[in-house]
């Protein structure tokens, strides 16, 4: 890129930048043209709803539309923070999300480490093929599978229980068990896939590091600790930050297709609540406030998480 002919003292003025921008556009207009559809789509489908978030501060009325609905300031947010219903929803969201993180985050890493130790390649490849199949199924299909598996009407699990002399469990109607169903089915669906991701990360580690460690007499365990884990630390940190930032998303798509009124008390999360109250009951303004609450917190968490990680671990998402 040739510098523009410059006979004036160098100015970092906006006017200068704009001029150079326009000159560039004139020169490579086809490049900029390619960007136009993408930007338009982005502005329309992503940024317009962000503007629409202002209805969280209004009493939205379909007929008045966005602009003319009456302004009510923080009324909906006050309701949000004092509503007992929302307290339950928030509690469920955090509990389910934390359970998923604690149980389902380390699991694929451990499994990938074990998988890495398999020497029979045919076996290893077969296992891989099988375990990440569920990732490609929709939640509708997964729910269908689990509803059948756990049914009280001839489902395999209950059959096993009764044959062992135990009582049947109504998995989808039992408040003390339902969360486990959510976590188990989520694990069944996603663990295989996450394992493959970590496995791929292992392959990025320089093999000579292992050989050097072996030369120094390192046992398998030490190799793990000093070569493997540090090698995949960046990707673990990345995944973890993203997962934490997303803590308020506890699996809306999954829960929507698996829950029912009987288990709302333990499984209604922010996403499902917004869907049911918002689109179902048409309580638009309030649920937009809820949605905004979630978006702001997630955004903050990711930013903070990334800054902390950059400060203490010298690595972040960007």
């Amino acid at each position, binding site marked *: 890129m040739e510098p523009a002919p410059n006979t004036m003292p160098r100015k970092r003025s906006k006017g200068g930048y704009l001029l150079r921008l326009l000159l560039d556009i004139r020169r490579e207009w086809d490049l900029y043209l*390619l960007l136009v*559809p993408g930007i338009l789509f982005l502005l329309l*489908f992503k940024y*317009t709803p962000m503007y629409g978030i202002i209805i969280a501060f209004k009493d939205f009325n379909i007929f008045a539309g966005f602009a003319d609905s009456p302004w009510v300031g923080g009324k909906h947010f006050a309701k949000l923070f004092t509503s007992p219903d929302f307290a339950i929803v928030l509690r469920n969201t955090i509990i389910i999300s934390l359970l998923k993180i604690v149980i389902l985050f380390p699991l694929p890493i451990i499994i990938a480490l074990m998988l890495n130790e398999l020497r029979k390649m045919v076996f290893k490849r077969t296992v891989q093929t099988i375990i990440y199949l569920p990732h490609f199924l929709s939640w509708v299909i997964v729910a269908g599978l*689990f509803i059948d598996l756990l049914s009280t009407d001839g489902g395999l699990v209950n059959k096993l229980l009764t044959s062992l002399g135990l009582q049947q469990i109504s998995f989808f109607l039992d408040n003390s068990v339902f969360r486990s169903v959510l976590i188990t089915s989520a694990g069944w669906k996603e663990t295989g896939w996450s394992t493959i991701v970590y496995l*791929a990360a292992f392959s990025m580690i320089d093999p000579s590091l292992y050989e050097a460690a072996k030369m120094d007499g390192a046992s398998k365990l030490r190799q793990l600790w000093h070569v493997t884990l540090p090698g995949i630390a960046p990707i673990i940190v*990345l995944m973890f930050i993203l997962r934490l930032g997303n803590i308020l998303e506890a699996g809306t798509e999954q829960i929507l297709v698996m829950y029912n009124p009987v288990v709302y008390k333990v499984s209604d999360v922010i996403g499902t609540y917004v869907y049911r109250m918002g689109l179902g009951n048409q309580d638009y303004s309030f649920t937009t406030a809820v949605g905004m609450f979630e978006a702001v917190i997630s955004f903050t968490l990711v930013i903070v998480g990334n800054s902390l990680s950059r400060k203490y671990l010298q690595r972040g998402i960007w």
Partner: protein
Amino acid sequence: MSNLEQASPSNAAAGASAGIRMSVGEKLFAVFNYTFFILMGIITILPFLNLIAKSFSSEEAVIAGRVGLLPIGFQWGTYQYVLQDNMFLNALKISVLLTVIGTALSLLLTTITAYPLSKPRLRGRKPLLLLFIFTMLFSGGLIPTYLLMQNLGLVNTLPVLFLPAMVNVFNMLIIKNYFEGLPDALEESAKLDGAGNFRILLMIILPLSTPVMATIGLFFAVAFWNDYFASMIYITNPALKPLQLYLKELFVSSTGDFLKDNIDAALNTTPQSIQASSILLATVPILLVYPFLQKYFVKGVLVGSVKG
């Protein structure tokens, strides 16, 4: 997948000293390991087995709850029924349409957006990237998006199911990364020959990008095929319901209300075995595409998440 086998302590050990004897501890671990994965494989397949058995079993056996891992009273009437059911076939058609159109358009849009953004010389690149990436961190939420679609008159149309999804920043970044990895020399020599940017993109960059196109294409295709949420909130017209939504309504209505009116009583099939057949039939397309998915997805994940 061969490079996944290289870096591991055991392989390094095997390489450094061939013919090494395994200690007792290592042998035990190996036994445990193989057993563990056999179990894991079984656990993965298990939920399918019962469903498959039920779909091939007679109605009375299913109702009586007698069906375990093997069919009882073998029949395949339920499959015939489902494959001739107009509602099922229509839903299938919609899903195929949505997936094909959605994937093609999405791939087109993300590619032409990724290309300029992969050029460091692009003025305004950083702010633009920020503009795109910001949408990955913050969004307006469900209700404002829904209201927007309403205002645009897109509710209950097919485009609403792919238009918003077309601008997928994550996928775009993956493609951008890939483009950045291509040697500059190619483009430079083309420019010397007087080629414009469109030409370069079309004639040089794209032919070299088949791996990433295949990967991202598959990402999009699987997402469109599996989506039920977007169709659930925007589609009430039965003629426009894609497969996943159709399936969902199949067993949500079976656990609560009663048989749908179009079930042929003469076939004597229960909601359960029809459910089972429907679910399994919906799984078939994924299984068919699976070998391709395997090949390209792992590569894609590598490029995407590790490079960030």
